[in-house]
């Protein structure tokens, strides 16, 4: 451009550099937000999984306890009835 003055090359490099920097900043923000959202989603899913596990374990232990009580009750009454019969 206009006699090939090196100043124009400098101007072109400056413009391109600043433009690339601006676009890179915008792209970084988009990438960063997406990554943070994904991490939040993962954390949320892990929390739900943990809650489900806790609930399942509570239910299992309740069920076991119920079974044990039923067995104890059954065995005790049966033993008493046997003793009475004798």
């Amino acid at each position, binding site marked *: 451009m206009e006699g090939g003055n090196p100043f124009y090359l400098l101007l072109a490099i*400056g*413009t391109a*550099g*600043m433009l690339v920097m601006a676009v890179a900043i915008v792209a970084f923000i988009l990438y*960063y*937000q997406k990554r943070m959202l994904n991490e939040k989603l993962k954390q949320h899913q892990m929390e739900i999984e943990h809650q489900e596990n806790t609930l399942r374990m509570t239910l299992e232990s309740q069920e076991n306890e119920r079974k044990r009580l039923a067995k104890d009750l059954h065995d005790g009454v049966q033993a008493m009835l046997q003793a009475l019969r004798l």
Partner: protein
Amino acid sequence: MNDSYAISIYVQQAGSLLIALLGVVYFLKRHLPIKLLSFYGFNSVLFQTASTIIVYNHKARLYLNLNGNIYTLVETLILLLFFFTIYNSRIAKSLILVFASGYLILYFTLMPNHWTELESSIRTTRDLIVIVCSLMYFYFLLREMPTGEITKYPMFWIVAAMLSFFAGTFALSVSIQYLVKVLHNDLALLWTMRNTFRFVFCLVVCYGLWLDLRQVRTNLTLTK
């Protein structure tokens, strides 16, 4: 004046007009920053029209730079007001006030006796202020970390367009005085490129305004 330069003037004028018109629809229902953008569009159209009239009127050519210098001041103040309204942080708002005062002092210190010259410093400072304000907006956006997709936020596109445009023209603003005074460049080709770039900037801003308009319409439908 060559054809491509003339076309680029009209194209960027059309872009500014589009910004103004998209901001005017449902004007009363729009947020203050959008109203300000609409005003920014109208202001650009006004000054660009004045500039076109001056370019075609050879006797008034002396006033072309005066028109541009006044436009730079008005544009900077409108954009500062725009950023002032989109920030929630008090520190950021205070910083905007500091920028505005600093710019006014710089402007009225530099401009007396140079009204008809193409002043670099006021344009460079304007670009720097807009770049810093845009970066501050993105910093606060990342800190707040919205749960929705930010590409659906009108302000994201508008500020991204501002950052890209003012960063892209920063080098030109810095060297404009040197180009004219030392290299005797008539700026036709450079200004054609700048105008084309500005048109792209206007289109991205319009996309943001259109997203905002869609949100306003949805809200209106829900409240009916």
